[in-house]
């Protein structure tokens, strides 16, 4: 029995490690390959780092300013996430702490918008942005997420469960206006829920590809995913440069994730249970 148990556990660990290796090895291979010449990439199986990273990087930077793309992505994602968090809190708070007619019906409408596929209105969206003269600006990406049903839902749930109404009443007795109550009492109390939602929201904006792809024309304004997508066509035969581009887009996330993995995963788990 004892021996059998050890064997079973050994197999289980081997399985876990095999899956973990499968998850990581593509990234390892990317980093290694990015440090070799194009001839070596074409001819050999590369397992150890080479010394060509600088050369590949120079060729990449000569035609694609990937750091500019990274900066653009950070700029758009941070602003869009901040605005999205603020509006989701306003709406979630409104649904949680006020009583008004049609409240449940309106909340069902909010949830129903989650069922509508995101790409359904994309052509009308493009035409509308054209009409608003917002093409080739960051406004479409920033305004796009201001109606996140998931964020509203998450924050309403949190406010229902963990923010006592007495606190808000005491604010009213102290003579606060309704907006003051929201800003001074509610927002600080919502911060755990906001931290969870911020992770979802930021990843979503960071990964957004279709919207920037269709509304931005100026190459210097493009976000990182669009620049990565253009590597394939710009460096058809220059694999070294393509690999370096991928590495630059993955490594910051790898560092960020290593530092924050506990928070991110517990945030995802919390969001998933609520959803």
């Amino acid at each position: 029995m004892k021996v059998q148990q050890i064997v079973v556990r050994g197999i289980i660990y081997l399985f876990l490690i095999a899956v973990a290796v499968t998850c990581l090895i593509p990234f390892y291979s990317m980093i290694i390959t990015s440090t070799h010449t194009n001839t070596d990439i074409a001819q050999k199986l590369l397992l150890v780092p080479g010394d060509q990273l600088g050369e590949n990087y120079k060729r990449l930077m000569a035609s694609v300013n990937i750091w500019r793309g990274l900066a653009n992505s950070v700029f758009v994602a941070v602003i869009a996430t901040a605005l999205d968090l603020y509006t989701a809190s306003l709406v979630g708070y409104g649904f949680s702490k006020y009583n008004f007619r049609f409240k449940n019906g309106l909340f069902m409408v909010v949830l129903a918008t989650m069922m509508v596929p995101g790409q359904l209105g994309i052509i009308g969206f493009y035409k509308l942005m054209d009409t608003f003269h917002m093409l080739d600006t960051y406004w479409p990406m920033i305004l796009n997420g201001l109606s996140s049903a998931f964020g509203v839902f998450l924050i309403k749930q949190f406010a229902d469960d963990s923010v006592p109404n007495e606190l808000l009443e005491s604010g009213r007795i102290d003579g606060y206006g309704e907006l003051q109550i929201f800003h001074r009492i509610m927002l600080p109390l919502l911060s755990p829920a906001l931290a969870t939602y911020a992770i979802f929201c930021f990843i979503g904006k960071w990964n957004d590809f279709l919207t920037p792809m269709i509304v931005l024309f100026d190459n210097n304004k493009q976000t990182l995913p669009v620049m990565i997508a253009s590597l394939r066509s710009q460096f058809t035969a220059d694999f070294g440069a393509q690999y370096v581009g991928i590495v630059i887009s993955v490594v910051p996330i790898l560092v960020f994730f290593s530092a924050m993995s506990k928070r991110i995963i517990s945030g995802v788990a919390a969001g998933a249970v609520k959803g």
Partner: protein
Amino acid sequence: MKTKVNKSAYGYLFISPFFIAYTVMGLVPILYTLYLSFTKWDGFTDPVFVGLANYERLLHDTFFYQTIGNTLIIWIFSIVPQLILALLLALILNEKFIRGKHFFRAVFYFPHIITPITLGVMFALMFDWQTGTINKLLMNAGLIQDPVHWFNSPWWSRIIAASVICWQYFGFNLIVFIAGMQSIPTEVFEAAQVDGATKKQVALRITLPLLRPVFLFTLITSVIGGLQLFDAPLMLGDGPGNSGRTMIMYLYETAFKAFDYSYGGAIAYGIFVIIMFFTAITTRATRMLKE
């Protein structure tokens, strides 16, 4: 009583941003797309009303039917292994004796936060038939003599697209399933232990049945997401005879590459009908399973 009236008016004020934003950025574009789908519009001149012409064209468009098939094939090939793997790993990681749980969860989840576009390019490079690592690896291991031309085969193209999706999402589903398992009250497991149930019995008779709502919810939501596959498959390319082209890729190529916006609108509504249809079927099927 006066405060009550006050409060209700403020309630509308607080929730109004959602409805304003959704109307302007969501509803208007959706209806505008519907209007454009009844016109002929190339993006430069004014739209001309043509009635149902775009929809008639859509009904006879074999390319469109092909993309429906491709999308379903890629979706099924990715969702089945993805859910099995996630469930199996969640059961394992929920065991007490496993060490390094957090490490494994973090590693399994990592691919999910990488941009799908990046993953698409990565896999396209890895499976490149001349320079890709996969062929080098297989040849060095002596499994194949000549490099395999992966993207020249319809089935390999689809399987590679499906494996990118599977690889990216199983970690996310794993986290969801573990969260679901941890929300099962511990008394249930304690009672089972007192009754002398084996681990296999606990997993099959308690954990899995109690996890069913979470599992079914994941399945239903995956239909909406899975049928909108776009980013990663776009980077892998259309494949031979368009065998790797998904519905949204067709929409994108028609509207934003061929500048046939109005026909793109008709495709968008076609895709909407198909997604609703399959969501309804899945919901129906899972409801039958529950009874």
